[in-house]
């Protein structure tokens, strides 16, 4: 084992990484969720409502929106988790005792990301106006509060967690298997001795690596098809968007993972190392991508790592297509990051591919 520093590093590294991830990065009760406001009435009362939300730990105001269409896009792209709409004539209705309605739309694709925040809303808003509605206006507070609260849990109104998990599983399965398949490709050639033969032929590194990647894209498709079928018929996951688009994206995602695997394979000295590297990649992918735990619940450093991982973007895409009915414009915002990942990783692989045996 002294000869194999990587194995030694893994033995120390894996518990450290696990501790970091489980101990610090993961949080089942996400706070400071990005929220946008559509403020049609900028009166004192409207602002009181907002500051009450702001003072809670759950909502973090990031944007002011001007119309419904903007709100729709922001939610579809997943830029914000919540949209708070304070309607026109909010103050006037309030003072007349008409109980104006505040609309809160939540991106509920992942029910666990929004659950606690939504649960906290009612008490939050009831107390929000207590300060303003004192003395002569006290009667408005009434017995059931001065306002109506409407919460729209968008995309997954019943909060069915399978709708979120099953599509995500497709990404997870592809990550695990695709990286593993090609992760062994080059090391296997080395260990079987076929590398010597391959290198004695006039082949280019990119050619060899692509030759190892392309056939497996079809293997990936079989898996993707299997999971999609199960999602449709066993779990009745809604499929609001275009399936051909999803399959197109899946091929890019599969290729990115295969590229990651082949690059590990050029870095690893033997099959054991390749497997270890795969595991080292899979662990953060599983935990930091937003698959197991809400992405926005993680601290910034973990989110930065998460943003680098193709699975993170693929999860956003697949959930976006299936649940939100997203089209190409929304998809491309995430897709280019997967493409970039694949290109960078493959470049490293080509650079590291040794054209000689030493």
């Amino acid at each position, binding site marked *: 084992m002294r000869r194999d520093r990587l194995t030694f590093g893994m033995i120390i590294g894996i518990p450290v990484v696990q501790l970091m991830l489980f101990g610090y990065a993961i949080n089942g009760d996400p706070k400071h969720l990005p929220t946008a406001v559509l403020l049609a009435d900028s009166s004192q009362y409207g602002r009181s409502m907002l500051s009450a939300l702001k003072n809670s730990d759950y909502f973090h105001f990031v944007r002011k929106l001007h119309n419904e269409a903007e709100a729709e896009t922001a939610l579809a792209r997943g830029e914000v988790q919540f949209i708070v709409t304070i309607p026109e004539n909010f103050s006037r209705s309030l003072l007349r005792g008409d109980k104006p309605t505040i609309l809160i739309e939540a991106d509920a694709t992942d029910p666990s990301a929004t659950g606690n925040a939504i649960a906290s809303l009612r008490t939050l808003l009831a107390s929000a106006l207590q300060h303003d509605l004192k003395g002569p206006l006290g009667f408005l507070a009434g017995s059931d509060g001065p306002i109506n609260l409407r919460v729209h849990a968008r995309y997954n109104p019943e909060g069915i967690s399978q709708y979120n998990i099953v599509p995500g599983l497709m990404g997870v399965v592809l990550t695990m298997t695709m990286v593993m398949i090609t992760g062994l490709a080059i090391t296997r050639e080395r260990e*079987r001795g*076929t590398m010597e033969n391959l290198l*004695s032929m*006039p082949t280019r590194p990119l050619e060899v690596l692509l030759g190892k990647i392309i056939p497996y894209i079809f293997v990936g498709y079989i898996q993707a098809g299997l999971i999609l079928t199960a999602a449709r018929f066993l779990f009745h996951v809604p499929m609001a968007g275009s399936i051909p688009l999803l399959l197109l994206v899946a091929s890019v995602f599969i290729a990115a993972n295969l590229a990651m695997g082949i690059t590990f394979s050029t870095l690893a000295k033997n099959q054991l190392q390749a497997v270890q590297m795969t595991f080292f990649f899979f662990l953060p992918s599983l935990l930091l991508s937003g698959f197991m735990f809400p992405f926005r619940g993680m601290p910034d450093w973990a989110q930065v790592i998460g943003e680098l991982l193709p699975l993170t973007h693929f999860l956003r895409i697949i959930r976006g297509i299936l649940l939100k009915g997203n089209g190409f414009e929304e998809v491309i915002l995430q897709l280019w990051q997967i493409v970039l990942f694949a290109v960078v990783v493959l470049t490293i692989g080509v650079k590291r591919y040794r054209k*000689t*045996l030493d």
Partner: protein
Amino acid sequence: MTDNVVIDVRGMTKRFGALTAVNGIDLQVRQGEVYGFLGPNGSGKTTFIRMLCGLLAADAGEGTCLDFDVIRESESIKRQVGYMTQRFSFYEDLSIIENLDFVARMYGVSNRRAAVHESIERLGLAGRQKQLAGELSGGWKQRLALAACLIHNPRLLLLDEPTAGVDPKARRDFWEQIHELAGQGLTFLISTHYMDEAERCDRLAYLSYGNLLTSGTAAEVIAGAQLTTWLASGPNLQVIARQLRTKPGVGQAVAFGARLHVSGTEALRLEQAIAPFRTEPYSWQQINPGLEDVFIHLMGNSKDNYQA
């Protein structure tokens, strides 16, 4: 003259850490020649061959292989060289025909199907083309490897112990084929441990501990060693062999079956040394040393140099 030299390298050197596996080897191989590469295990044969086709980066050395620079133009060299690895290195989970097709594709052979078909015919693999390479016996694996080496019509073949573990008949067939191909103008560099194969080569090189000890035709190599050899026959040769080895003037006493070859570089002292043993029931006669005597002699000397 120079335009039909296929391999012409000087000072080829390869180090693995502290070990110099190949130490400044010069080698010239002419077109159409079958060049034998000999030397004990670990003497650097495989390492040298790998450097020729760009599989290992040389630490020093220069020259040409097939008129390309041996250091810088290995991509071009690879295109015209067929390299047969010492260890079987085809895909065991592919069939014979699939392996050949793969190789043909890697070399970009035009009219691939015909080329694959032809090589299967030529090597008599026809009945077995669907068999998985991993299921083949040793001899058939060698045939497959040779077929694969030839598929892109190379000008030079580098064969690293092509007949290790092959039965005598198959070895004979193999060598007949090699001489036939050499007759058509192909050049061969073949490493081997078999003396009968060494004798079939047009010229030889002998390596030990990375050094080229001798090279030339078999006759030149034997003459160059300036060895005198006596052959003894009789009972209990092991006993006198042990005694002879301690005598000055005796370089080596090697048993060949029921005969003993006793050799030394100084004819006179050798004769003095064996004189006491030239009694009944032993019969002695002076013979011309064979390649094996010479190689054993070279190996013994180089070890001394190495340890000194």
